[in-house]
């Protein structure tokens, strides 16, 4: 597990999955990749296929249509993998908590490692979230060594 996780954290490739969000979080994720924020300098690249990805960025409140598909996509992901929930909708459904089509928050569908709140979170917040995720994994590795 140690070697695998080390390789994973060296340059995590991200896959972006919108499960019924309003586009805002998705655009902010893309913003992270463009010149002003440019997370590519840390080796993070947007992967075109889930089968090439190490980190899954989930946005939006899983609705009845997408719930099954999110599960299926998570199962296709090579393990070990990390999941980041971005935006209020995927955390707690936010404004859509009373909607008939948003039955559960995303962490009831797939396991989530890091939550980034905000509607939408700023690119800075997303980058900070990913850094926290990497630190968390490193810390857990150190503990495991002890």
């Amino acid at each position, binding site marked *: 597990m140690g070697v695998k996780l080390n390789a994973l954290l060296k340059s995590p490739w991200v896959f972006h999955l919108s499960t*019924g969000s*309003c586009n805002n979080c998705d655009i902010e994720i893309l913003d992270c990749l463009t010149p002003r924020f440019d997370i590519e300098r840390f080796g993070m690249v947007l992967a075109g296929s889930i089968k090439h990805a190490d980190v899954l960025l989930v946005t939006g409140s899983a609705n009845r249509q997408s719930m099954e598909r999110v599960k299926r996509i998570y199962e296709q992901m090579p393990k070990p993998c990390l999941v980041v929930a971005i935006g209020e909708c995927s955390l707690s459904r936010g404004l859509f908590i*009373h909607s008939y089509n948003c039955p559960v928050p995303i962490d009831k569908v797939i396991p989530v490692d890091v939550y980034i709140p905000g509607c939408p979170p700023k690119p800075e917040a997303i980058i900070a979230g990913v850094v926290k995720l990497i630190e968390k994994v490193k810390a857990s590795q150190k503990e495991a060594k002890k």
Partner: protein
Amino acid sequence: MARTIVPIGPYHPLQEEPEFFTLTVEGEKVVGIDVRVGYNHRGIEKLSERKNFDQSTFVIERICGICSTSHPYAYTRAVEDVIPMEVPPRAKYIRTVIAEGERIHSHLLWLGLAGHFLGYNTVYMWAWKLREEILDVMEILSGNRNNYAMFTPGGVRRDFKPDDIPVVLKKVDSIVPTLTMLKKAVIDDPVLHARTKGIGVFSKEDAINFSALGPTSRASGIRKDVRKDSPYGAYDQVEWDMIVTENGDVFDKVVLRILEMFESIKIIKQCLDKLPAGEINANIESIPPGEGIGHIEAPRGECFHYVRSDGTNRPVRHKVRAPTFMNLPTYKATIVGQTISDATIILAAIDPCYCCTERVSVRTVKGKKLYSGEDLIKLSQAKTEKIREQLRK
């Protein structure tokens, strides 16, 4: 030739939103297309009915992140139409500035993605870098990068600070040289010409038949723009031109959107110069029973909202028709007959926004009866009555 079906989606790297395309191809040629949406449906119209008129604005704002001004603008206009009332002049100017800022950022976003789809990642990066400047302007003016939360029925929620206006004017001016460079880079590039000229041609007749809206119709030579046709906000008090191009292919849509950004900059600068003093909110006391409509020109076309009030503090019915709802069927005219490698850019050319389109609509078919909830209850009661009579015998 044998037909093959190419499924695209619903989760694919082409667009940020989930949607499912089925392309039917004969060899390289596309002969049919079907689009399936519904992966983004959040029941916003119903949600809006359980919130009061002020709260609804924030729900409406989250219909779509890119159009987060267009929808509240149309909604607040619909609510003001119920009363009916006029918004204070300062609020009108502030609304116009915010709406035009959104148009620039939306068009830049689209330009970047279009460049990305064509394999021109340089255009993508330049456009998105420039977009950050506009987002900075919006952050200075409204405090938010994306969901501005500026609109409320009767006016706007925040005033522009006098100190901010020179900063914003300077920033807007600084965008122009880069935008001009981008315009030249896109319009003069021979490869982009080869990839977009004559591709996905949408003729004027088709544009009329499909009732296409916004840039999609204006690129086909139709002079249709809500800002000119039924002016709202401060659009009739500033000078600007409606951009219309003739050919209807992808190239014309690119050029049209780039030129529209220059017009938007013109509008923003004039509005900030002329900004009248006074109230920013009319403070609506109560909303009488009645119905109202509001329509505005969103970056993608006419955005239409309908609100019905029964005198309480909540809308009884709220209907949203986003521009993409009308533009989506135009694929039938543009993509059929093209090669599959051009499908990506043609699908993207209308600047589709599926989040906006995710509404439930009921279609009636001639000769078939559609049962509503009340009809079903009546049917059920009639059956019970029938059984009761049979048992009596």
